[in-house]
């Protein structure tokens, strides 16, 4: 597990490895109260999803994201729909999502929000606009906001990811509707040079002019509703992107890596020349400590340590209900896959309903057509439960089965082969806690900070 700690799996305690003179006695003590009770827990990971679970998840979802348009006014080199990527995900037909389809979906949701399946009161639901560049289709955005504002079943909040080129033009809409913006900006002019127009002209000056305009003229909106995201690549670094945005706007930025799945084989080399690993790059940063502290959960090692503390220690209770549950009773769903739609519903520009943008849209979970909204309950249940069945032999032999993070829709599964990066066989002596515990050893206050301040939705 870790050379300094013994993990008491059943009660989820990490205890210091005893010194040699008392080790035997202490291990015997743990044997009596802990070790010999491990087995029964493992066998309960045979839960399966059903229709009621999916409907409940949908009725209580946190976010509905509309892919407003496939159009974009930029042609960024590393775009997920660009030359680096192959297959279906890269096909863009410049479609706009039909307003009628979006309204049909909201009506479908409103029936669920009115039903007993919705067990939330005055719940914030994020209605998010995604693209392409969503501000190329403001008619859609305005109409959907007006439409959803008439519902009395939820408290809608609005958000959008934008390249900021049309920010100045549309600022009134954004401010009036308190739309949370995530602006893509990779740093200074040089750092941002992959974010280019279709005619290869750089977008940086226009983007900065727009952001400055909002900052100068709408400071309250800027402070409360605007966040930044920077994509990491070979023309910037964590340090450069972070420092530029922090110094210019007194804001931090989240840093994303390039998507490493579905790369077009013919330009693999160019892709890997462009790609930069976030964890390594952050570690090499000049102001590593400062940036890491500011990034906090957006720093990859802190994020994984936080998840580790939440899953592997017994200090974290998800809800008050957990005080009443017998942790050793019940049946658990295998893996870390969300119940479909529990976090997000994503509607593509052509009306497909998918679980989230992280899952390839080759797997629609439903569809919106002229005839109405259809969720493929049977298909979702079959696909999910069949995958659970295929994984069973691995899960029952996996050290991490009770605390798994793995989403089954991101696994490579076919009839003969299964690749689960998180699989950790029971027999294998595991040292994989090192990556999580070592940041805690390096920075003691992290433990308290995570347990006092981190609340996942």
């Amino acid at each position, binding site marked *: 597990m870790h050379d300094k700690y013994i993990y008491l799996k059943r009660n989820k305690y990490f*205890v*210091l490895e005893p010194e040699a003179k008392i080790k035997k006695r202490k291990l015997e003590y743990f044997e009596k109260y802990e070790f010999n009770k491990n087995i029964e827990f493992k066998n309960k990971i045979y839960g399966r999803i059903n229709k009621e679970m999916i409907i409940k998840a949908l009725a209580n979802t946190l976010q509905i994201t509309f892919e407003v348009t496939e159009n974009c006014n930029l042609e960024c080199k590393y775009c997920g729909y660009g030359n680096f990527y192959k297959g279906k995900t890269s096909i863009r037909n410049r479609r706009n999502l039909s307003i009628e389809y979006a309204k049909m979906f909201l009506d479908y949701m409103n029936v669920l929000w009115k039903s007993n399946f919705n067990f939330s009161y005055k719940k914030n639901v994020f209605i998010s606009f995604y693209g392409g560049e969503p501000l190329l289709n403001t008619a859609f955005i305005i109409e959907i906001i007006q439409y959803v504002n008439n519902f009395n079943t939820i408290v809608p909040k609005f958000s959008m990811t934008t390249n900021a080129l049309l920010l100045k033009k549309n600022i009134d809409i954004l401010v009036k509707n308190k739309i949370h913006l995530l602006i893509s900006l990779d740093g200074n002019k040089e750092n941002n040079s992959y974010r280019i127009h279709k005619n290869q002209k750089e977008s940086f000056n226009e983007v900065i002019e727009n952001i400055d305009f909002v900052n100068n003229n709408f400071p309250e909106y800027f402070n409360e509703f605007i966040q930044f995201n920077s994509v990491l690549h070979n023309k910037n670094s964590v340090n450069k992107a972070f420092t530029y945005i922090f110094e210019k706007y007194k804001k931090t930025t989240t840093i994303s890596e390039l998507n490493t799945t579905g790369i077009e084989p013919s330009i693999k080399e160019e892709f890997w020349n462009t790609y930069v690993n976030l964890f390594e790059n952050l570690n090499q940063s000049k102001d590593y400590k400062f940036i890491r502290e500011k990034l906090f959960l957006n720093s990859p090692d802190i994020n994984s340590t936080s998840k580790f503390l939440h899953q592997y220690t017994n200090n974290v209770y998800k*809800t*008050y209900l957990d005080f*009443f549950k017998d942790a050793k009773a019940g049946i658990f769903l295998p893996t870390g896959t969300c119940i479909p739609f529990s976090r997000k519903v994503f509607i593509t520009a052509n009306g497909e309903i998918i679980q989230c943008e992280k899952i390839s849209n080759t797997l629609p979970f439903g569809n919106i057509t002229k005839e109405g909204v259809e969720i493929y309950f049977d298909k979702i249940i079959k696909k999910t439960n069949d995958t659970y069945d295929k994984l069973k032999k691995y899960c029952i032999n996996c050290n991490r089965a009770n605390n798994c993070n793995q989403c089954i829709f991101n696994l490579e599964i076919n009839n003969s082969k299964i690749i689960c990066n998180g699989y950790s066989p029971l027999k294998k002596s595991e040292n994989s806690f090192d990556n999580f515990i070592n940041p805690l050893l390096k920075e*003691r206050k992290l433990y308290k900070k995570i347990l006092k301040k981190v*609340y996942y939705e």
Partner: protein
Amino acid sequence: MNRWLFLDSYIEITFCHKEKKCLLYNTLDSKKYIFRNKEYEIIKKIYYREYSIKYFENNENKRFSDLIENNFLGGIIESKEKPFIFYPLINIQRNLKKFKKLSYRNEGANILENLFELIIFINGKKRTLLHEILNLIRAAEYSSITKVNLIIENYFFLKTEINELILTINNKLHCLMVIKIKYDEYTDLISESTLKGIKNYSIIVIIENDNFNADIFNEKNIRFVFKIYNKIDYNHFVSNLQNKKIEYDFELDIANCNIDFLKENVFLNKADILKMKVTKQDYDANKTLNKYFFGKLVIKNNKIYNRETKGKLITKLDENKELKEIVFDALINSNKWFLIRDRVKPCKTCVFKYICPPISDYEIKASRYNFCNIIN
């Protein structure tokens, strides 16, 4: 190389600073250790320094560290760096009190998961707003509800309403229904056909005096509650119940009970508390909320309260609030579900405050929180 004295992560500490005293509770084996004065001071240092301090050996320290080590409470470790201990620190993800400070969080999200139990009094003192009660039951269909208690008086006159209520609970909620009824109304209830199609229910029969037919003890699936006021009643029932294979409890009229009787028969002694086996989960619960009260709504005389005894009025049935809003109000605007011993005198200064059972209705009725012989 330094030597460090540490406590293990499975050890919980409760202080009584006023008396320079603390309790170490081992959540693995449930053993409890009280330390005072100098040892209390050392433990206080360990606690405030994240479960470890530098160790310098002398006779006194050695005796203390041996005690810690021999009872598996912690130990000594040699290390250049201060050891890192995963000391206990609770984090409740949907901590609604925190949400008030976090604007992006959703206080009302999944609110119905906090509804565990309904206690419905039907007594005919006021015309029951049955339609409104049935609507609430329907709305609780996907909540976390595990039990509905029907406390019935005047069954004969309220038969129609009660039977409709029983059928709706059975059809809509997949939970246990407990019907509490006085002995003299029991026969009427059981002769009704409504109960015959109900699977998951149990009956509690209240017996207030000797005026009952002992044949009732032969009936199945019944619990009995004997109302008592003093030791004479208690002894009387106990002697009569000897060799009877029945399940029963006593219900005390606390307000009229003799204090000596309570001390002898109800109050917890130190020995009782030392025997208690409290899980880490229950220990944390006792730090956070009242497990007896949390998640319970009481419907009585067409009003909804957050607790059976001296509960706060949440709403009136004729206000037609949604169940979600009612649970939200009970949770957010009232502290009763969170009434823990750390918030009441004299328990708040007691080192056993997180080991003791939660504050009970009896204590509320009696307006005293220490039903124990430890702090007087």
